[in-house]
């Protein structure tokens, strides 16, 4: 009985020598059996599958590394954690412990930041949607309000007429930095004079205190020099304000948009080959500021609102194989217990997927699907992976950014989110949803109670 051979599902793979194909080459040579020293099997046993896993150690290390890229080049740097990237309270608090302020884009996120204990003056309020109530609260708390449009500016002016204190404001500036697409839907445009016009309106308002300038030139930016162009344009406005109003701004906020080394769909190169080092972005921004006409002892605070670059690598999604099947053309299809409902970023990334148990040297070209009964539920269209069987565990990499904020309660419930603390302990930081929880938000009209 004991001398039976280990079983692996029979497999045949066509050999394509010398030619590239859409599946690419095999990428997995070692199973990912542990995350931060914790066995994946143990995580599944305790918290079910699928389960999001975040590494506190990697979050902190990444933050310190990226912050150092800037602080070694510029004397006054402040990071503000981008709440929308991942606003689980435990995650936000790690960044706040590290010294990050909060960057929020809604009343909901603003409330979260306050509840996380962030002082009002260390909350940056961005975005086009700020209600009067949100703005009133932000003024009272001396938060940094980044005005997105004229309607907001006029609302704020009106609200502040009866206030005892001045609103601390900046404007968001959009601009041509030489990259496509140009983001012009947020803030005021630099080139056509909207931004300067808005600045003049603010400077003429006794109840608004202009404290900074903000831009956010795009997302997953691959051109570090675009940040130099952006910084130079903000510096031009900064100097213009100083010249005309003899007013010195406290900060220049370069926003976020820094990429993580994830694999973008449609890119020929993998993320690690495609994405420039963070040092390049830091160098472009810092040199623009240092080389400007601003005297060294008057340099403004540089604020960075990075999200994705800080957390993507610290997040994993552990899942399991539900089934194997074969498509009509003979292609292998593997169905996982996680889909686009919780791995929203698979719409734009080819997430690397590693088996979590040992495997042979044989691999199969396959399409990886999620569990939803919807045709859109595709995790990887073409990937070469070791032979997987029902019940095997897999780990999707670099899922820390945007998934636990953009995930959908669609068809099924959202899973547990676990943090591996710095001592290797497992902490549940968001409990999986239950049918009772979802139903508790619903109300059934009287005439529909009886069916």
């Amino acid at each position, binding site marked *: 009985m004991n001398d*039976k*051979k*280990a*079983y*692996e*599902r*029979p*497999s*045949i*793979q*066509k*050999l394509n*020598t010398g030619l590239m194909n859409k599946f690419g080459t095999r990428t997995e040579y070692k199973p990912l059996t542990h995350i931060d020293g914790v066995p994946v099997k143990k995580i599944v046993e305790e918290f079910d599958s699928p389960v999001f896993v975040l590494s506190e150690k990697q979050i902190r290390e990444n933050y310190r590394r990226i912050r150092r890229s800037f602080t070694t080049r510029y004397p006054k740097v402040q990071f503000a954690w981008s709440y929308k990237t991942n606003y689980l309270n435990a995650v936000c608090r790690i960044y706040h412990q590290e010294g990050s302020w909060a960057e929020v884009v809604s009343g909901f996120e603003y409330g979260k930041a306050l509840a996380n204990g962030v002082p009002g003056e260390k909350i940056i309020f961005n975005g086009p949607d700020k209600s009067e109530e949100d703005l009133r609260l932000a003024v009272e708390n001396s938060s940094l309000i980044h005005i997105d449009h004229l309607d907001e500016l006029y609302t704020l002016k009106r609200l502040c007429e009866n206030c005892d204190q001045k609103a601390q404001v900046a404007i968001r500036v959009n601009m041509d930095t030489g990259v496509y697409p140009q983001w012009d839907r947020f803030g005021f445009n630099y080139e056509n004079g909207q931004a300067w016009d808005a600045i003049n309106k603010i400077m003429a308002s006794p109840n608004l205190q202009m404290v900074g300038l903000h831009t956010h030139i795009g997302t997953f930016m691959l051109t570090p020099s675009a940040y130099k162009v952006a910084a130079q344009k903000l510096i031009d406005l900064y100097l213009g304000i100083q010249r005309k109003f003899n007013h010195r701004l406290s900060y220049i906020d370069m926003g976020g948009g820094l990429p993580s080394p994830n694999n973008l769909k449609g890119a020929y190169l993998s993320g690690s080959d495609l994405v420039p080092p963070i040092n390049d972005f830091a160098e472009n921004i810092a040199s623009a500021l240092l080389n400007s006409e601003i005297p060294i002892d008057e340099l403004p605070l540089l604020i960075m609102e990075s999200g994705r670059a800080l957390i993507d690598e610290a997040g994993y999604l552990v899942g399991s194989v539900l089934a*194997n*099947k*074969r498509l009509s053309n*003979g292609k292998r299809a593997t169905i996982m217990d996680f889909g686009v409902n919780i791995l929203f970023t698979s719409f734009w990334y080819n997430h690397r997927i590693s088996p979590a148990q040992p495997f*042979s040297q*044989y691999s199969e070209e396959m399409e990886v699907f999620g569990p939803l009964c919807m045709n859109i539920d595709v995790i990887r269209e073409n990937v070469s992976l070791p*032979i997987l069987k029902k019940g095997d565990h897999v780990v999707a990499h670099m899922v820390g950014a945007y998934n636990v904020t953009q995930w959908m309660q669609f068809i099924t419930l959202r899973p547990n989110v676990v943090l591996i603390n710095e001592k290797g302990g497992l902490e549940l930081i968001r409990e999986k949803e239950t049918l009772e929880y979802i139903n508790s938000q619903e109300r059934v009209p009287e005439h529909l109670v009886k069916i």
Partner: protein
Amino acid sequence: MKVDPNIALSDTGFLFHASTGDSFSVNPTGLRILQLVKSSKTVEEMVAVLAEEYKVDPEQAEEDLFDYLQYLRQLKILIDE
């Protein structure tokens, strides 16, 4: 059901289809099944052999065997007699 006579199969799992020029790699289980087909075993006999030689229950072996044989037919490696 038999293996196309134009196919050369090595002991290490390299398979060459002489009439199409295609070459394939099979894993050890896949190779064993091709050897069983060559020795004219029936599907039931093949399941029994797999369950005897490998750490797998007959149901799983049968499910995988059917999928594999069907794919081999699609690749024109197996042909009907």
